[in-house]
């Protein structure tokens, strides 16, 4: 006898597509970005990586061009998608995920600490507070990714376009100074997101493969939601969806 677990559609095809588009471009942009930075003082990847990538692509100029165009495609597609789907997808997502008050941040940090401690068999006596659609760690990560992505897109465009369009020498060092700070912000934001992505990928692949499945099919098991996200389950119940 086959046992089919009841599921519910929680993600539309376009949301799934934009998630994987984002993931693919992140991977490409991180790999090419780490290949551009060659100097020992500022390099982020082992020395072989920039050399290898620059050789494969026929020089750093091609790599910079690929990274810059890739970055603009990434920011452009996500920006247009967000504009076209502001009401249906973006605003509800932001409402669910943005951590804007200190009280919410403290609650989410506390929930995240308990979740992480449980991974190592610690704080067993403390249970994770009931979660809505996104748990504390996901909300903190989501807020950080949104803020960092905006910073990455803006600084990235300045880094790519300003040397071509602006007169650095005539600005008495101002535009060059902005360029250098944009570089620092760009790098810091990328590293922050990467920090979060390590946890994001671990949970999706190891701890909760059900959520990875949802990001492929759009379907989530009702029992999984009931167990992991009781507040969301109650909401779905109220809406008559489960």
């Amino acid at each position, binding site marked *: 006898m086959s046992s089919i677990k009841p599921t519910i559609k929680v993600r539309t095809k376009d949301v799934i597509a934009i998630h994987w588009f984002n993931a693919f471009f992140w991977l490409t942009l991180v790999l090419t970005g780490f290949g551009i930075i060659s*100097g020992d003082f500022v390099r982020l990847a082992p020395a072989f990586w920039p050399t290898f990538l620059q050789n494969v692509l026929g020089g750093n*100029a091609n790599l910079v061009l690929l990274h810059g165009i890739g970055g603009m495609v990434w920011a452009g597609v996500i920006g247009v998608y967000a504009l076209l789907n502001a009401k249906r997808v973006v605003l509800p997502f932001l409402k669910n995920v943005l951590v804007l008050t200190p009280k919410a941040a403290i609650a989410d940090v506390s929930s995240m600490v308990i979740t*992480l401690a449980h991974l190592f068999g610690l704080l067993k006596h403390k249970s994770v507070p009931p979660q809505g659609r996104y748990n504390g760690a996901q909300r903190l990560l989501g807020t950080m990714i949104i803020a960092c992505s905006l910073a990455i897109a803006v600084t990235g465009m300045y880094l790519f376009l300003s040397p071509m369009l602006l007169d650095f*020498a005539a600005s008495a060092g101002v535009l060059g100074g902005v360029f250098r700070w944009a570089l*620092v912000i760009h790098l*810091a934001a990328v590293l922050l997101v990467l920090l979060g992505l390590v946890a994001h990928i671990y949970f999706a692949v190891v701890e909760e493969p059900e959520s990875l499945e949802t990001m492929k099919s759009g379907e989530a098991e009702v029992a999984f939601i009931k167990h992991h996200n009781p507040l969301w389950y109650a909401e779905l119940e109220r809406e008559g969806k489960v």
Partner: protein
Amino acid sequence: MVAKYVMLADTTRCINCKACEVACRAEWDTPLGYSRDWVKEVEYVNAKGLPEVQLFPGRCQHCDDPPCVEVCPSGASWKREDGIVLVDHAICSGCELCVPACPYEARWLNPVTNTISKCTFCQPRIDKGLQPACVDTCVGRALIFGDANDPNSEVSQLLKAKEWQKLVTDEVNIGPNHYYYTAGKAIPDTVMPKLNERHLSGKLMENIVNPLGTLGIGGMMAVFLGAGIKKLIDRRQDVSNKEGSHEQH
């Protein structure tokens, strides 16, 4: 063997005619007020109480460990196998992180190209088998250029024949490939390289953002690798416990 290009400056033969600077400006069409090379004049009173002038023709020293290459975020500053330090203008952003990194103050932002300019030992001329423009024009034969790895080259012979000095200090010793002959006179401090104050943004990136980011990502990976291993061990424990209880039944 790959060439190792060096420049020799015999300060006793320099007459400060500035022909080298003029030739360099003409060769590279540098904007007014800018030059890729220079002649520093140092005036002092000698042991006999007489005024004396020492002349030091200078330019990029094409160092073995060039800090300008180390700090360049785009890889536009690079070093050829033969030791010549170059700037790839197609990818130089003009961010000027390399400018204070050079202790010889050999780099500047070109207001026409918006990229960094510096001496390249006239690399296009060298590749054609010619001498750098400054060397070709030097009326006193004070500048001599060539391959130090070729034992038959003039520079190799001269390096063996005379006592040459480099512009290095205890603080700055990055392997310059520019030699000076002063006939035994000490090189004045004013000519020596100096560590410049770097841009705050560059220091922040180098000393805080990059190390913290790398450590943080490494730390996170270690933490979650640990969590994964613990999960595996717990699962094995569960399975063996279950198998044990089945056998008892």
